[in-house]
């Protein structure tokens, strides 16, 4: 019995060890939406986009660019768009300090350095989007966050460019990734109401 009791205890620990992180990840929404005055603060600290080829490039000392857009929609499919905003950021990895730096290509342009991978990811995916005037407090809406690693050829061009225009944003996200290796993420949150935030 004692032997059986130890076994049961081990199984319980094992089950708990597996289920707790799983439960945590299911319980925590991947998109966090918070109201700050006339803006919505949208963050996605759980999205792990510094992986694969992008991470390899960073470790080789090469900067990697990403482009992101936030859609505020009247339905889940995203066909009714209230507002659209986009931004770009470039990450690099300090060869000597072994830390990451991120630059958000403005306006306003801002940078941060000496970050770990999760911190860099969280900093990049934390954005303020203005609340669309047509959005009433009781009207349901959805927030979509799209993220795409920029093609290296595009990355070379974005250096020095101050911002991004909507035409180019729509153009980038309306076409398929140039190749299978071009990474792409999409997260949706909703239905939400302003009165609940």
């Amino acid at each position, binding site marked *: 019995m004692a032997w059986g009791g130890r076994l049961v205890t081990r199984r319980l620990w094992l089950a708990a060890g597996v289920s707790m992180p799983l439960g945590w990840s299911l319980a925590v929404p991947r998109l966090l939406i918070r109201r700050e005055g006339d803006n919505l603060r949208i963050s996605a600290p759980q999205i792990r986009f510094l992986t694969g080829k992008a991470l390899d490039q960073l470790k*080789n000392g090469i900067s990697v660019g990403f482009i992101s857009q936030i859609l505020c929609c009247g339905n889940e499919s995203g066909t009714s768009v209230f507002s659209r905003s986009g931004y770009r950021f470039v990450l690099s*990895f300090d*060869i*000597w300090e072994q830390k990451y730096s991120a630059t958000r290509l403005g306006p306003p342009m801002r940078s*941060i350095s000496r970050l770990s991978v*999760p911190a860099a990811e969280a900093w990049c995916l*934390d954005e303020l989007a203005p609340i669309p005037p047509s959005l009433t407090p009781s009207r349901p809406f959805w927030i979509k966050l799209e993220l795409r690693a920029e093609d290296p050829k595009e990355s*070379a061009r974005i250096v020095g460019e101050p911002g991004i225009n909507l035409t180019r944003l729509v153009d980038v996200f309306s076409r398929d990734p140039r190749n299978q290796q071009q990474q792409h993420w999409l997260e949706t949150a909703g239905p939400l109401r302003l009165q609940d935030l």
Partner: protein
Amino acid sequence: MRLFLTGVLLAGASSLIKGEPSQITPVVNVNSRYVVESIEIAGQDQFTLSAGIHEQIQNLVGENLDPASLDELSERIRKEIHAKTVTYRIGRGDQPDQVKVNFEVTRRSIAFEVNVPKFLYHSTQGWTGVVEGVTGYGSSGVTFRLLSDNDELVERNTGILARYENKRLGTDRVRLGFQFESYHQSWNRTTRDVADPSALYRNRQNFEPTLTIQLAKPLTLTAGVSFERFQTQFPAARIESANAVVNTLRYHRLLEDSDAQKQVLDAGYSLRAATTLLSSDFGYARHHWNFSYTFSRDKQTLLVSFIGGVIAGRAPLYERYVLGNSSTLRGWNRFDIDPLGGNRMAHGSVEYRYHYFQVFYDAGAVWDHGKDATPRNSVGVGLRKDGFSLAVAFPLKDGRVDPVFIAGMNF
């Protein structure tokens, strides 16, 4: 519960942003603050980079890392050697706060390109055109040429040239080459009138295996055998051969004094010795010397060159020296100077270029052993850009000015 977790995560993310990390002046690549210690290019034994690229590399070393310049450099390398991709990695240097840049070149599995090495019009001698296709795999390269050349020799030769070259035979210092040529000849009327009919031929073929050894960094020796045969026209069609041992010693050195200044020194000696030991119908030794020096500074370039040659013994017409073409005694017609060429030759040239503008002076003589040499001179001006050139040359004769126009590319 959900709101609580959300709050915790937001607080965590906020502390990451507002905590230890510091806001800095925006830079896209944080490694830009480090100094480039060295730049290496992997697999450089497989290809040769131009002096301009070496100069660009030297300019980047010792400066702060500039990713845009590295991107530009990698693109330039890719275009120059027709590589599939050129990528680079940045790693720690030997000294603190310095970085090493390592370029990696991925070659195309099979590259193919078409070039026009020479295309020109000479107002007294007509057209010359050479088109070549070049392909390669690894260290091997194959060149195939179609040409009709009325500029280099006494004859106009029209035909093909095929060449295989292995640029790395076991070691970087040894190259192996096989060349095959097959031409059909046509003769200028002046040459036909004065030549011994038995010296003229209607077609010729040459097969030439060679081995090139790099004796020292700027000094190479090429040795091989030329199996040349041709079909004479008169008095009856017959095959003759001029099989020869070929040797070339070449010294080529690039001197770069500063960013805007460049000097190139090129010198060579070649010997073709036809002997009956190789079943040749001709026995002769053809010696050829060349020397050139180029000095460039900003938009100015000065070129000084000298060539000389001696043939001992009886050689076929294609071996004889000619002057008065697109590169020697410009302005003279080679058939006016000597329609059969000569077995002695000396020529010197000085050329000055400023941006697109060029002015040159040529002097030289071609003659036969035992006869007096007649020195000739010419001057000219022209425009030159990206291989295209347009020149007008004036032979300095007794009180007469007969301008000759030369236009074309890569000559």
